[in-house]
């Protein structure tokens, strides 16, 4: 009797235990899958987000390996993930060796949007990279904070607010120099003739660039200058030329593009079209070989007047498009010094968080098919201009241009 009861209980006990064990194991396993996220993966059958992109890029797994050591071991503050991503993009982009392809974080992007409008807050100077890749002052606008503080064209900037500029793109440097009106910035300057760098403190101001200036010179020679190809530049130029002609017919026109760093491509084409009535202004060539031709637009206001164009090492990009077109169409004489040599076109791309990536997407060529990148355009009449000339208020380049227009040579 006992044995039967024992057997029955045992059997039942065993079967219950086994049942519980199965259920328990099943529940545990399902729970485990939930915890590890595999359940979701199984349900959706979606590929891993970490995905094929990273796995296929040589060197990338090492990025995360390295970053994990930092996260786990670094003695110091590990900045927010966003800083790391921005740093990574900057590093990657700066490694391409193209100064004009750059990453701008959302703050920097906002600063450079201002450029297109022609007014910003800063020190009132144009900076560029010289042929040794140093940040140099191309021009300190007269009457603006930089010039008032004693900065001169040719000054090399080695540090901003004590920070070395090594490894920074030109955009990064400009972002450091710009700032709200009334605030101060310290530039460490290396100047030719001085043995050691010295500091210059500049108080920033609201800067409105006078995009176009114009005046009438002796002998009915007109003079117009254009400082940048910002939005509306061509219209302002047209108005200025018309304004000069309203005072009486012009026997010649000096068009000053010195220290004009460029700007919008379509403004460049429009400006060139004031002087050239038909034909190609420039040819754009993209990766992959596609070409786009930009022809002269009708309605130019200075198609006939004898023309001299002033250029120097600060004349870049759109300035060179205009200069190259005038040269190749034999529309005018070039006077001054060899231009900068920026023959590429950039497009800004806005990324999903508001940052901007400016990428060089094309090279542009003159109407004759010349590539001017790194070469620049050498004027027909070469006239140097020294710091001494500038300090004495002389302008030998302008004088020579006027001489050409009055004497025909």
């Amino acid at each position, binding site marked *: 009797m006992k044995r039967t009861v024992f057997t029955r209980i045992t059997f039942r006990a065993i079967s219950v235990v086994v049942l519980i064990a199965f259920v328990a194991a099943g529940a545990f396993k399902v729970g485990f899958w939930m915890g590890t996220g595999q359940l979701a993966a199984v349900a959706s059958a979606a590929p891993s987000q970490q995905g094929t992109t990273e796995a296929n890029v040589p060197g990338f797994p090492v990025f995360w390996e390295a970053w994990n050591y*930092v996260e786990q071991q670094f003695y110091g503050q590990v900045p927010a993930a966003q800083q790391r*991503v921005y740093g990574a993009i900057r590093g990657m982009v700066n490694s391409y060796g193209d100064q004009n392809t750059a990453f701008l974080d959302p703050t920097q992007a906002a600063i450079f949007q201002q450029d297109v409008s022609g007014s910003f807050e800063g020190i009132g100077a144009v900076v560029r990279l010289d042929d040794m890749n140093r940040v140099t002052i191309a021009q300190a606008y007269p009457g603006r904070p930089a010039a008032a503080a004693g900065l001169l064209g040719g000054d090399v900037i080695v540090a901003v607010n004590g920070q070395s500029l090594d490894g920074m793109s030109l955009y990064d440097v400009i972002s450091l120099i710009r700032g709200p009106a009334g605030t101060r910035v310290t530039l460490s300057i290396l100047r030719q003739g001085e043995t050691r760098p010295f500091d210059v403190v500049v108080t920033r101001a609201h800067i409105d660039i006078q995009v176009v200036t114009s005046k009438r010179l002796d002998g009915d020679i007109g003079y117009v200058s254009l400082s940048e190809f910002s939005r509306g530049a061509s219209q302002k130029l047209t108005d200025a030329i018309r304004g000069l002609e309203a005072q009486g017919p012009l026997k010649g026109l000096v068009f000053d593009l010195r220290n004009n760093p460029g700007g919008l491509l379509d403004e460049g084409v429009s400006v060139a079209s004031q002087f050239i009535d038909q034909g190609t202004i420039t040819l754009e060539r993209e990766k992959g070989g596609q070409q786009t031709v930009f022809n002269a637009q009708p309605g130019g206001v200075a198609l006939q007047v004898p023309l001299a164009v002033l250029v120097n090492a600060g004349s870049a990009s759109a300035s060179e498009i205009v200069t190259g077109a005038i040269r190749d169409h034999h529309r005018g004489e070039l006077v001054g010094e060899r231009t900068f040599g920026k023959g590429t076109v950039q497009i800004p791309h806005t990324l999903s968080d508001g940052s901007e990536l400016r990428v060089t997407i094309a090279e542009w060529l003159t109407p004759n098919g010349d590539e001017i990148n790194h070469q620049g355009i050498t004027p027909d009449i070469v006239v140097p201009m020294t710091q001494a000339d500038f300090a004495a208020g002389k302008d030998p380049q302008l004088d020579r241009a006027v001489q050409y227009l009055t004497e025909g040579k």
Partner: protein
Amino acid sequence: MPNRTTVILALVAALAIFSLGSIVGYGSHWYLTRDNPTSAEIDQFSIYWQAWRIIEDQFYGTIPADPAPAYAALRGALASLNDPYTLFVAPEPRALEKADLQGEFGGIGAYITRNAAGDVVLTPLVGSPAEQAGVQKGDVLIQVDQTPISSTLQTSDVVLLIRGKVGSQVRLTLRRAGTAEPVVVSITRQVIETPSVEWHTLDQAPNIGYIRIHLFTERTNQELTRAIQELRQAKATSLILDLRDDGGGLLDAAVDVASQFLDKGAVLYEDRRNAPEKTYPVKPGGLAQDLPLTVLVNGGTASASEIVAGALQDHQRATLIGQHTYGKGSVQLVYDLSDQSSLHVTVARWLTPDRRQIDSTGLTPDIEVAVSDADKAAGKDPVLERAVTQLQGQ
């Protein structure tokens, strides 16, 4: 047929076990995926891939071959830490050429240090190819063959540029104080045995032993042992330990060196993240515990040298003479990554025996002595002279 209570109990039990399973699953997922980015990190990183794709599609120019962009990205990310000592070293290109190597590697025989501006400064060894070719102490290296040297180029990369096959030539472009134009020298590489310690008794005071340590290597303590023995044999009764312009080296070597002069206590404490403070005690058996000692320091005395100087100062074992030291109080570990590149990470700060933290502040000498340009031009060493006076007065 089980009754209702049993069924309910069974369900509750199943639910409990399910929850336990999820917790364990979640925990192990966290543990297992610590090495993989989380979804949040991947989302943040998506703009990197947006940028990368735009460039791949449109960039008019040559994209550097992989893995250069990934390495550049890593360097850029590490730059956000603002720590010049946490850095990435790409796999040594020459290591990959092992199969083709014939002959030995040589160098030019010069110490490389960096000054506060990030310049690479050379100090040629006496009799070295560098010295024979005209390299002078203090020359700043601005170019090796065609490669310009910037302040961001890492010292390991500079060394790789300079070293090469024995018998081959390397052209160095140097900037020299007092010379307007850069100086160019052409050097034939040779096998260089670089001792890290030099020593002699002083001509002006033959009972003072002078020891100079250039760098803390695996051989330093062994060389120092020999130095102390030979100087004792030469009847030295006091010592000058010159650590000027010694940029550091191995921490263990620093502990061994300090232990030559101390009998007990700590040489340094190490403060690591996520770990208790570690003590590095004085090792017994130091050979120069009894000799009066002065230590010479300057702005180039850094890291391991500051460990030694700081320990000797805090134990009041030696007088520090000269100028304020560099101020590098951090410790780096080197991690090897899966593609033979390596990552140097700042993992700890070290503290002197009195628990002073010297990072960026440096050590203040007990007796400050400056060296003027006129002294240097005349070949005078007022710091050494002051040390001699100090020891002779005791």
